[in-house]
Structure formats: structure tokens, C-alpha cells
């Protein structure tokens, strides 16, 4: 689900208040977001609050807002250097806390505008897509995962990893006269300062491969 799983419980008798978070930088102009949720969906979180302290600009701590079972913060105040501490609080009492580094739990925004153009002369398909991260200041270096499959082949996804936003698929590598589905997701580049999780998948794009001449001559 794209969350950090590296927490440990303070004390065996406590309910399992472990939680996971991901950050999205410059998700809304220069505002960042941090989203957390309890790993146990059945937990009664009615009076539980989340607070982040440390590695913040000009302030010591920030309280999360809550929407149903998800806690989130929208702010410009992430220092982006060093660890923060996120605590689950019941009133003033901290029940459990976890050290997290905002730049190491980044979940990019999903790519979009996936499209495929057939080039008859070159016998290939040019796949292009877009990502909002090209315009960002911080998380610019992403690895993209292009997944495509023949629609009737339920789980037979082929994958291509690339750092650019353009890819060519050779016609001879695809079935003739067949319907294909293609989609893309992104993750921060592994050796970059920013690390984290896979984004959501882009909306899928569907295209049909042409009948080739050999097939036409046999008709």
C-alpha cells in the first residue's frame, strides 16, 4: 500500500497502534502533504490524535487533521533535513511514537496522459505519458514502470522501467490485431536524496494493434 513498515510497539499489552505514513512534496503548489493511517483498520481511533515534531521550519510541532480513518497534514514547513518524530496521542499522553524522515517516505503523484501512437513506417508504437514531477523543485528524479498486457491475458503484464517519459514498443513484439492495455506508475529514483514508494497507477490506455500484411495476404 506504499507505507513505511518499520515501527515497533512500545509495550505488549497496548493495542497495536502501529501506523504507516507517506509524504507528497509540492503536491499543491509549494505545499507538501503527509498522510498516515493505522495499520490495523479495525482500531478505534475516535480519540486518537497524531502529532509530528522535529525537522520543521520555524515551529516545533504540527497536529494532523483527520478525515475518517486517515490523518493528514498540508504544510510548507517541512525542513526536509533530518528525522521527525510522529506520535499517537490520547489527550496529552503519547501512546506510541515513531521516528520518520519525510524525504524517505515520498510517494510520487501518479503519471497521467498515457498515449500510444502507431508508426506504420517504423513498425513500432510510441508510448508517451506525463508526470507532474517534471515541474517540481524537489522530487524530480523518478523511475517509471510501464506495464502493458494483451487484454485477454489477465495477469500476463510486461514491464519496462525507464526514467524518461517516452518509450517505443516494437510491433513484432506484440500480437497482431489484438487489444492491449497499458498503464504507468512512478517511484523516487533509488540513489536520489528522496526515496519512498510506488505511486498509484495512471489511468489505463487501451489500443489495438493492426493486422499485419502477412495476415492480410492470407485472407
Amino acid at each position: 500500500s506504499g507505507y513505511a513498515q518499520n515501527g515497533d510497539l512500545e509495550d505488549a499489552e497496548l493495542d497495536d497502534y502501529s501506523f504507516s505514513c507517506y509524504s507528497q512534496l509540492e503536491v499543491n503548489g509549494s505545499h507538501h502533504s503527509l498522510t498516515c493511517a493505522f495499520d490495523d483498520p479495525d482500531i478505534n481511533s475516535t480519540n486518537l490524535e497524531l502529532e509530528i515534531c522535529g525537522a520543521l521550519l520555524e515551529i516545533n510541532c504540527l497536529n494532523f487533521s483527520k478525515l475518517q480513518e486517515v490523518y493528514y497534514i498540508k504544510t510548507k514547513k517541512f525542513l526536509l533535513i533530518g528525522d521527525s518524530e510522529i506520535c499517537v496521542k490520547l489527550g496529552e499522553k503519547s501512546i506510541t511514537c515513531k521516528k520518520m524522515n519525510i524525504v524517505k517516505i515520498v510517494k510520487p503523484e501518479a503519471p497521467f496522459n498515457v498515449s500510444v501512437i502507431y508508426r506504420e513506417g517504423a513498425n513500432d508504437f510510441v508510448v508517451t505519458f506525463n508526470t507532474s514531477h517534471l515541474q517540481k523543485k524537489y522530487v524530480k528524479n523518478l523511475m517509471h514502470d510501464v506495464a502493458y498486457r494483451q487484454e485477454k491475458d489477465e495477469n500476463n503484464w510486461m514491464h519496462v522501467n525507464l526514467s524518461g517519459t517516452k518509450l517505443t514498443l516494437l510491433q513484432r513484439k506484440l500480437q497482431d490485431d489484438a487489444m492491449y492495455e497499458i498503464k504507468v506508475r512512478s517511484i523516487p529514483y533509488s540513489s536520489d536524496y528522496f526515496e519512498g514508494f510506488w505511486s498509484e497507477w495512471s489511468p489505463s490506455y487501451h489500443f489495438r494493434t493492426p493486422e499485419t500484411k502477412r495476415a492480410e495476404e492470407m485472407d
Partner: protein
Amino acid sequence: YNFTNCDFEKIKQKYQKTIYDDLKEYMNGTRSTQFNSTVSCNNRADCLAAIERLTFRPPRGCASLAGEAFALRTDATFTLQCPGYSSAQIHNTQAAKKRKKREVTTNKCLEQVSQLLGLWGRFCRTFRKQ
């Protein structure tokens, strides 16, 4: 404070990924050639010492830069990557951060930040010679 034992690679990464954009944003609207470079440094530790001096002890005519994002990030970077560096003792940054939230951007401050960009650039170039 002697910056010789700092983790220079990590400092460079933090500069390139966060501090640089802050400095450019601070200089937004000024031409990069508007100020002559008047401060230089010889090696990495020397550069960091000069950067620390210019960041946290600005000259007359520029009240304080300590509340700026680039200064807060520089402080956090040095605290993380330089053993024994603690800004609170060295130049009372904690007090400076509280007292001077964000200062008016004077021309003197712009000149100072222009020098900082030069020093950080010089610091990064020391890695190219390796």
C-alpha cells in the same frame, strides 16, 4: 568550530536538493551578475566555515538571515553531518531563530546571499577535482 570532520558528501547532497533552491528563491528577481564575488574559500572545511560565518553572522545593514529557510536548513545540515556542531552554543541560533522570524530583504542581505551562493558553488566544485 572546525568543519574538517564533517560528512562533506551528505552536506553537498542536502545543499543540492534543498538549500540551493531556497537561496535561489531568496534571490528571486535579482540578476546573478548584480553583485561581485568578494568572498572565496580554499577547501571544503574552509568553505563550510565561510558559509557558516556569512549565514549566521550577517554584516551591518542586514539584520539577520537566521530565520530564513536556507539558514534553518544549513543549521540542520551542519548539526546532522558535523560531529559536535551545535549551533545553539556556537552562535546562539536558537535565540536568533525565535527573535527574528523573517527579516525584510535588504540589498545588503541580497549581496550576502549572493556571496553564499558563490561559496556553496565553490564547495561543490571541490568534488569535481576528485
